[in-house]
């Protein structure tokens, strides 16, 4: 990160994160830790672990999902025969959390509003045992190809894919909707998009996506909203908009094994709805993972 960018970043996030700010900087310097998720549509997770360990890979179970593992030998993970066979997916351990919170069942109709490249879509298909229905949409054709390629490799058969601007509601209703929005990525090592101007631009897009999702949600349905940004404008402000303008309610969630803190209820002189505190926020600097905020 350049000095100017860091100064601007520090000015914004040190007051928000306080004593956690050094942990964020530590994470941004270190980068993410490799994680793999066993694809139980094709293989038993224990059997996969045994096979990979026999090849010399060191695996450590992710505390919040028993079928995912941190892997030490990063350079080898995409070169194994098991990877070719689609027996596991390489992803950030943090991106396991939104599907776990959405908790899709084999009878659900699920919408993945910004689906590509598909780490969460393929995980949801797995959680649904390839039953029910997933509609996975994204804006960019190139990214849809990556999504389709990943779905094929994971052996997914319950998913429909097409190009669609998520800001426009489909003429359909869903039991569960994942709104994993485009964002500045300020909670990741990829800070190319981050600027105060970009934060506002993304915040407006994110509100439009949540609004569209709310129109397609069945009564008593659930939306999980997630970002890999740590900016309140892209997180708490969007949830506040969902509560005050769209009439959505925030449900308190818990992820066993994951340490997190509650959402901010005030930022830069703006007071958010009290329920916003039930969102979760985490920085995983000790295990070098991304930062996400969720609400459902």
């Amino acid at each position, binding site marked *: 990160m350049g000095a100017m960018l860091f100064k601007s970043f520090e000015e914004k996030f040190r007051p928000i994160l306080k004593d956690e700010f050094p942990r964020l900087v530590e994470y941004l310097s270190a980068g993410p830790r490799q994680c793999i998720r066993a694809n139980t549509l094709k293989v038993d997770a224990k059997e996969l672990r045994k096979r990979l360990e026999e090849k010399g890979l060191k695996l450590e179970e992710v505390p919040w999902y028993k079928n995912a593992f941190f892997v030490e030998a990063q350079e080898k993970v995409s*070169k194994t025969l098991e990877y070719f066979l689609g027996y596991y997916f390489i992803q950030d351990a943090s991106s396991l959390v939104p599907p776990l919170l959405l908790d899709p069942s084999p009878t659900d109709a699920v919408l993945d509003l910004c689906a590509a490249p598909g780490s969460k879509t393929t995980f949801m298909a797995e959680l649904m045992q390839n039953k029910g*229905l997933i509609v996975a949409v994204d804006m960019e054709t190139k990214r849809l190809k990556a999504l389709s390629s990943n779905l094929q490799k994971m052996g997914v058969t319950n998913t429909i894919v097409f190009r669609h601007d998520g800001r426009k509601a489909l003429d359909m209703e869903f039991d569960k909707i994942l709104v994993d929005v485009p964002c500045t990525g300020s909670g990741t090592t990829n800070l190319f998009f981050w600027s105060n101007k970009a934060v506002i631009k993304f915040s407006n897009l994110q509100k439009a996506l949540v609004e569209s999702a709310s129109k397609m949600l069945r009564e008593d349905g659930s939306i999980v909203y997630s970002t890999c940004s740590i900016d309140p404008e892209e997180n708490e402000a969007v949830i506040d908009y969902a509560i005050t303008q769209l009439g959505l309610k925030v449900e308190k969630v818990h992820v066993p094994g994951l340490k997190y803190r509650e959402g901010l209820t005030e930022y830069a002189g703006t007071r958010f709805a009290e329920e916003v505190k039930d969102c979760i926020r985490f920085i995983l600097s000790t295990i070098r993972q991304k930062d996400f905020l969720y609400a459902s």
Partner: protein
Amino acid sequence: MQVKKISPREVEELIKENYGSEISLDNFNVFIRKDQKIFLASKGLPAPLIEKSDYLLHFGTIKKNRKIQLSVEGSQLVGRTASKNIAVLDEENISKFVEGLSAKPRELVGCSIGNFVLVKHGNDFYGSGVLREGYVEGYIPKERRVMKEMKRI
């Protein structure tokens, strides 16, 4: 996707003829595209959405003379109960196969030259290839191949 729904029985019969495997595709809706590619979808997916979809699981491609070439995923569904047209590859040759190269089989189970064969290593199935004199010609799609410069472990 412009596809036509077909009876699973048609594909099951082809699989039995080619690979001696008695699989059931009853859990799927089976579709064929103009280019003879066969796709699978879980039962219950709405027809209008199938038409709209850019993706369905590619199972295989029907070729001349009632032959069927299987994708990696197709071979994984069929392989467990297959009894013929199986080429077993050793460690060195499976590495070549996943790079998209031709590979020498260690063992052949009920194979004929010129036929499509399931490619097996250990208990795993890696797709299909065509058996030539002394080698299996690979058909791994480019995007699926393990890059040559990446040393496989």
